[in-house]
């Protein structure tokens, strides 16, 4: 089940990049600021050498990590509460369902007003947007655990806490992992947006900065790098799921 290099897919990608290069160099495409891939590569080497890329990446990854952990804890705790308690679902789920579809971006100006241009603003927007997949998947995972497992906990004389930790949460783990993965993807997207508008640091700010400085090669280098970063983070989590989930049997990994 190891991931193999997709040769036809890679060839297509390389061909498209080559076509882009030829189109720009040959003058077939005449945007004022569309750099050729080779120029972007040169700019990329430049921002790596100057250390700008590293600084920006560390900032963004740092806030993604903090935001992700916060979202996992808050979303996971809410999900557990609502998954376990029919009372909570009956009385409070409707309120959350009203809050959930509000786009987090619309909150950015509000957060700015409250917390000014800061990491707090960035985190508030990130966490607000990314708790939802964690919340929904944890709640669903816990609520869908077979009621038989509660009987098992009772008849084996496990305490409610032991039943929760040893039986219910592990039973819901595949679903919770899906939530955690969706959550990470959202956190990165929101971090970039928040840095563009609300916190002048990191990769999002670097993109905007390159735009203002009219350095399209650098801008493209940052944008493409963000794409690679997203792919890498996703792959990392998938790999973690592959290590954790084989015990769950056929199909558990595929669901994540």
């Amino acid at each position, binding site marked *: 089940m190891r991931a193999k290099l997709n040769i036809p897919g890679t060839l297509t990608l390389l061909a498209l990049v080559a076509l882009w290069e030829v189109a720009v160099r040959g003058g077939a495409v005449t945007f004022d600021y569309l750099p050729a891939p080779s120029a972007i590569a040169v700019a990329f080497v430049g921002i790596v050498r100057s250390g700008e890329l590293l600084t920006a990446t560390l900032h963004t990854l740092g806030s993604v990590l903090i935001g992700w952990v916060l979202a996992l804890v808050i979303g996971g705790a809410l999900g557990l509460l609502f998954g376990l308690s029919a009372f909570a679902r009956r009385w409070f789920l409707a309120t959350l369902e009203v809050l959930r579809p509000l786009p987090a971006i619309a909150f950015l100006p509000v957060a700015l007003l409250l917390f000014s241009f800061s990491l707090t603003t960035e985190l508030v927007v990130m966490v607000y947007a990314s708790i939802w997949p964690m919340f929904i998947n944890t709640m669903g995972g816990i609520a869908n655990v077979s009621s038989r497992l509660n*009987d098992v906990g009772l008849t*084996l004389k496990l305490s409610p806490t032991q039943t929760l930790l040893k039986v219910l949460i592990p039973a819901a783990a595949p679903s919770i992992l899906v939530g955690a993965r969706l959550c990470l993807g959202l956190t990165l997207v929101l971090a970039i947006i928040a840095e563009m508008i609300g916190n002048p640091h990191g990769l999002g700010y670097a993109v905007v900065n390159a735009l203002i400085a009219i350095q399209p090669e650098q801008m493209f280098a940052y944008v493409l790098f963000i794409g690679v970063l997203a792919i890498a983070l996703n792959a990392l989590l998938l790999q973690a799921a592959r290590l954790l989930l084989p015990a*769950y049997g056929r199909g558990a990994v595929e669901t994540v």
Partner: protein
Amino acid sequence: MSAATVVADSGNIYECDAVSLELFPHGKRRLIIDRLSLNVRTGEFLTIVGSSGTGKSTLLRLLGGLVPATSGNIRFRGAAVAGAPSGVVVVFQDYSNALLQWRTVARNIALGIEDKLDKAEVDARIRQSLQMVGLEKNALDHPWQLSGGMQQRVQIARALALKPQVMLMDEPFGALDAMTKASLQDEVLKVHQQTGTSFVFITHDIEEAVYLGDRVIVLAGPPGRIHNAVDITLPRPRDQMSTRQSPEFLRYRAEIHDAVLAAGGH
């Protein structure tokens, strides 16, 4: 002399007196068990048969402390049952739901004892339980790698690891094929003989009830109540061939068959 000792002297490990259970599905009152009185003798293998809807599983849940009675008394070793009593363990029919699919066989068996006993004792009990159900070679497998019959053996082993005084079994072999069922029946009889554990065994299979039981109770309903009880005096150890072909066995089978029909149900 304490009350508990008096009850223990009566030779009954369970005493149920006029037990009723009402549920309120969709706000409508429904009587599931109606003033049912029943004793389980210490060391007895009691089987309970009845058509569907006679409250067999509910009765077992009441005995196991998984659901509280609406009225009446259930006493286990003289003490009123409130919650799952220690010394009693339930084995469920749906083994794949009841096992922790992410834990190995050995770790499933450890679930009920790992926080209560030291590691050496836990390991010893896992080994004994695996041996009793013939799964020594499968300690490190996951349940989803095993056949249905083997998974049900794991659940029985997990119950045995608690060294219970009573095993409550809810149609444990209902989902298994005939061959597997026969070998598990003999397995359970062996455990009964070796450990002296009392059994309350629910089934809708009349032959199984006669083959296993010291006594068969026929339930009528709904609402569930006792129709009659039959003492089974077939000699032990029992044998899948000779016991089942004996005239006494066939007579019991016919008697209980008629009783189940007379008791009605769905």
